[in-house]
């Protein structure tokens, strides 16, 4: 693993560039674009969460939406019912999601890959069902409207809310960057390549997997909590598998197993959705064609377009094993 400044810049550079552009956005574009960027921030966080598991640890999770949704609902419930301020509610949401990940992960990370995919998916589906059928707690399928102070009301204070979201997201992304570039990231990649060998080298494989599972859940929960600022509503579809699918698409579009891949992919996906929606009502058809085109032209993701596929960069699916 190259830890030179060059490698660091290559890995984190695109994200840094996008963050810089994001910071300048309100001065350059109308609020329509600022709101679009806000939704990209949220998608990027869920994609990063997915990539932590899939790209780095080799664990294909189809249930990041479960933690995203827990983040959303917890944030709203803490604000509405307990009168807590947004940032504290967000912290609470991360705690709840991390706890849920710790408990479910204790069992899930020991499962073999196919079981892991389906059970993480089932977790999201179960939570969605529960949210739809618990109207007293969650408002059922009418959802809940967040009780936000006017300083955080996106209609009144578009830019203020946007910068709050950007700031939190940037902090989280920085944290993830440090994690993946440090030894912890190396160890995870080792587990992904060959779990058996890692185990014989003394790596506590299950503990590491559980750790990254909890971390990824926290990141997804931040995404969910921040989405409350831009949408002001929480509705059971925050648990929908399409959110997990979008995280997958964004990561694959941008480049699996790279730090910036999911971020770049989230921006790309957001732009595709936005413009396709404006240009045509046959959105499904056109989006399908665009996605197909991108994956055929850039099979390893957009980020990879800048370097050749050489030794040591195989984006494999989980290297199973106990």
């Amino acid at each position, binding site marked *: 693993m190259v830890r030179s400044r060059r490698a660091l810049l290559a890995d984190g*550079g695109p994200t840094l*560039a*996008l963050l810089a552009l994001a910071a300048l956005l309100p001065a350059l574009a109308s609020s*329509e674009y600022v709101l679009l960027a806000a939704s990209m921030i949220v998608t990027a966080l869920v994609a990063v969460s997915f990539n932590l598991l899939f790209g780095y640890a080799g664990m294909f999770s189809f249930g990041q939406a479960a933690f995203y949704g827990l983040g959303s609902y917890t944030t709203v419930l803490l604000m509405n019912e307990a009168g807590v301020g947004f940032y504290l509610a967000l912290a609470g949401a991360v705690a709840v999601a991390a706890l849920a990940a710790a408990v479910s992960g204790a069992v899930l990370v020991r499962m073999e890959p196919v079981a892991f995919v389906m059970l993480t998916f089932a977790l999201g589906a179960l939570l969605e069902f529960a949210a*739809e059928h618990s109207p007293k707690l969650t408002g059922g399928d009418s959802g809940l*409207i967040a009780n936000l102070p006017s300083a955080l009301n996106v209609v009144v204070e578009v830019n203020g809310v946007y910068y709050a979201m950007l700031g939190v997201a940037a902090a989280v992304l920085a944290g993830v960057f440090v994690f993946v570039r440090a030894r912890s990231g190396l160890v995870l990649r080792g587990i992904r390549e060959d779990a058996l060998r890692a185990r014989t080298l003394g790596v506590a494989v299950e503990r590491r997997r559980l750790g990254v599972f909890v971390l990824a859940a926290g990141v997804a929960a931040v995404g969910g909590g921040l989405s409350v600022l831009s949408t002001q509503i929480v*509705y059971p579809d925050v648990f929908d598998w399409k959110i997990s699918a979008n995280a997958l698409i964004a990561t694959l579009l941008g480049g699996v197993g790279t730090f910036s891949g999911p971020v*770049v992919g989230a921006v790309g996906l957001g732009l595709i959705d936005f413009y396709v929606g404006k240009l045509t009502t046959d959105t499904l058809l056109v989006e399908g064609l665009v996605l197909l085109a991108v994956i055929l032209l850039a099979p390893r993701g957009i980020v990879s377009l*800048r370097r050749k596929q050489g030794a040591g960069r195989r984006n494999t699916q989980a290297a199973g094993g106990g």
Partner: protein
Amino acid sequence: MRRLAYGCAAAMVLAALALGGCGSSSSGSSELASGAPVKIGYLASLTGFCSTFSQEYVKGAELAVKRVNEQGGVLGHKLQLIVRDDKATPTVGVSQARDLVLSAHVKYLAGTCSSAVGKSVEQLVANPSHVIYAVGVSDPTVFAGGPEIYAFDTIPTAKVEGENAAAYIRAHPQWKRIAVISEDYSYGYQVTAAFKKAMAGSGQSIVSQDYVPAGGSDYAPYINRLIAEHPDAVYSTVITEDTVTLVKEGLPLGLFAKTNFFGILDYATIDAMPKPPVGVEGYTFYPSPSIYHTPFARELEALGGAVANGGAAGDAFNQIQLIAQGIAKAKSTDPTKVREALAGATVQTVQGDVEIHKCNHEVAMPIAMGRVVGPNHTLAFAHFEPLTLVSTDKYLEC
């Protein structure tokens, strides 16, 4: 080569900005400049839950706009329809509605078939931004905010629907055991709750209460369960394509032979069935022109039987008409003045003249009831014969 990644990222974003334009203009005054069009933002659920009728809703809205404009518009302003897809989810619906209001400076909204979207748009966009919102959804809590709300209802709420059904069932006291089957989401829960409340003290007992998954492809287990309770009558609020599944599977299972079935059976749905449930008692409140013989109903016939008969087009037509007539009555395009003018006013709709109740902006739309017959000499498609129009005034709270 390394720079390419930065270049690509930057190029993407800059291209987006270039295409989108910069800055945001300040909001205009509440009265429209003369000659400027009255923009109506229409939320159509082109994908997702109720997409089946979305194209028809849009056609109905377009027809209404066309007719109003042919007659010179309203107060000298032409109507302009802007259609957006809300994907039947509140987050998208609110985001589209907000965009319409903030970027396109729309002061009038209409549409959505989803109560969840209607509720969020009403609370997060229409009321705070003072934008009139004509919407046909069944959730009574959307209109529970008192006369200050900017939303106006164009269909009976779930509460009205359930109470009307209870009145019908109670009119048959010989039916002792009643089974209820509804959709497994808030509409189903609300109708069933209102029905049960209105059935209290009737001496008739509700022996079975089932919620079937919306969009499900196999209701046989639910139908069997229902029949096993030996009900005398079944009240069904399973809607649109789910009714088709219920009827198709129910017929061979003896649902209609073994029980007295009473349920919501709108014309579009029964017409689409290869074998409509002939002889079964149904009701609908979707404004199919063939039910009402009003001038507006005749105008809808221009859309062709399949679209017009569904009722979705009629509902959208009514929503646009409500907005146009409100502006005319208020002699102003200011939404707050229009709101005052519409409260308590009588408006012309496909169903005839209806009064908008001041307290909650609900309208007492008549409910059509009757026995299903196949195509015959009266009408070339499945319909109710004999047909009764029931007034729902008595079910509105204020």
